[in-house]
């Protein structure tokens, strides 16, 4: 028998008996951040490839979602702060050892850039659009002139944002479920996949949806591959890792992870997308909806489950 008991009485809200300091705001933000990263990455990618005309939804229409998602995500992050009026302290320093610090700076850069991106396409999307002020027209002309270098910057920032949503968690060695380096690429791939899903949903063009669907299938397969690697790592890991993994093997997150994230969020939509490419009719909103749902669930499961895991001493 091995038993531990707090005899002095310790029942601190959100810490005892289980750590639950991060609530729904954090997984929601991680989802929206990944979604925006995915949308912006592929918008920029197709601009760099010179395929603006072929991919109108990817480059223009879907990007409207990105700044909205980022602003809602930032709002959720702000909501989660417990010392809200001091949030500006984030922007008085850069601390490279803290993923949250450089993540905050990345958001500071990519949020306005995403707004500028959408703004530069306003006239193309809404022919009657008028900026009213001369300097805005000049600024728009400037952005359009340097669109390709701008797209390159956007691609890099989108990758940093996507990786950061995973590294934010993997940097905490006190939480064995999070403390795995594969979480960075896994969240990046998952975020890009949700971004592609949202773009597919917006797109009205058959050819464009096919192109996006093909890329998405590859991304989902990579994601499944990374998840297998993640769990191989846990199974071959130390006691803290195998204990953490039990949450997914019979523990309280078994159903939510294997059914909602893996089956409904990955396996099912990738099968539907493949069938669609083979010529079967699949309602166009079903795969994107499932992918978005799976991505959101994945982040909720990881944040909730990770906080429970700990060192055993």
């Amino acid at each position, binding site marked *: 028998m091995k038993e531990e008991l707090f005899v002095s009485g310790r029942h601190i809200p959100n810490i005892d008996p289980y750590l639950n300091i991060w609530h729904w705001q954090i997984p929601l933000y991680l989802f929206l951040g990944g979604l925006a990263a995915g949308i912006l990455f592929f918008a920029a990618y197709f601009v760099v490839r010179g395929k603006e005309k072929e991919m109108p939804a990817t480059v223009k229409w879907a990007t409207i979602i990105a700044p909205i998602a980022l602003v809602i995500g930032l709002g959720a992050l702000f909501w989660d702060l417990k010392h809200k009026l001091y949030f500006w302290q984030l922007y008085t320093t850069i601390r490279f050892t803290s993923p*949250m610090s450089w993540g905050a700076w990345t958001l500071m850069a990519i949020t306005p850039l995403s707004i500028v991106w959408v703004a530069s396409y306003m006239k193309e999307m809404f022919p009657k659009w008028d900026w009213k002020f001369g300097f805005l027209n000049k600024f728009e002309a400037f952005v359009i002139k340097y669109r390709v270098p701008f797209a390159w910057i956007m691609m890099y920032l989108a990758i940093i944002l996507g990786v950061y949503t995973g590294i934010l968690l993997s940097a*905490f060695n006190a939480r064995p479920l999070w403390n795995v380096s594969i979480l960075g690429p896994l969240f990046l791939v998952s975020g890009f996949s949700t971004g592609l899903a949202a773009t597919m949903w917006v797109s009205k063009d058959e050819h464009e949806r096919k192109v996006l669907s093909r890329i998405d299938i590859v991304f989902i397969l990579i994601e499944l591959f990374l998840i297998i690697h993640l769990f191989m790592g846990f199974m071959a890991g130390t006691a803290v890792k195998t204990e953490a993994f039990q949450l997914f093997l019979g523990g309280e997150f078994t159903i939510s992870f294997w059914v909602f994230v893996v089956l409904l969020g990955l396996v099912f939509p990738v099968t539907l997308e493949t069938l669609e490419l083979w010529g079967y009719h699949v309602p166009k909103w079903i795969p994107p909806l499932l992918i978005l749902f799976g991505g959101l669930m994945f982040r909720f499961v990881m944040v909730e489950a990770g906080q429970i895991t700990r060192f055993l001493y």
Partner: protein
Amino acid sequence: MRYAMAIDTHKCVGCSDCVVACQTENNVPHGYCRDWIVEYVDGTYPSLDMRFQSERCNHCDNAPCVRCCPTGASHIVEGGIVLVTHDECIGCGACIESCPYDARYPHPDGYVDKCTFCVQRVEKGQNPACVDVCPTHCLHFGDLDDPNSDVSLALKDRSWKVLAPEAGTKPQLYFLT
């Protein structure tokens, strides 16, 4: 200079005086605590082994809370004491997630709070409140670099262990066994 604490698990009776002394000295809000006592029971009846130990922030040499703090509010001062600057803390909770000892908590006023080794007393050459109040004298505090300090003398002739050394945090609470 390296402040540290040694806790004699053979002497601790789990009376919680250290917890109350800390709450009084540091105005810890009701329902919260910066230190606490854990009872560990090992073995199978009738050969049970029970020990009490007073736990708190480990003032780690390689403090993950300081590493992951996005604003620099969590920092290390002279002697290795880990502190939080209240008006730099945004209450993001990253340090709470990063602590393998769950030694930190969000203060009702918003910032994150934890044991400070009673830095206000240590600066004056006094011991932390928990150490002075302990009725069994099971807590030893002092400078590890000074061979004659209370903590150095306590560690000299006894075996000890630290909590979760595999976390790599280099904790500075030594539990005498």
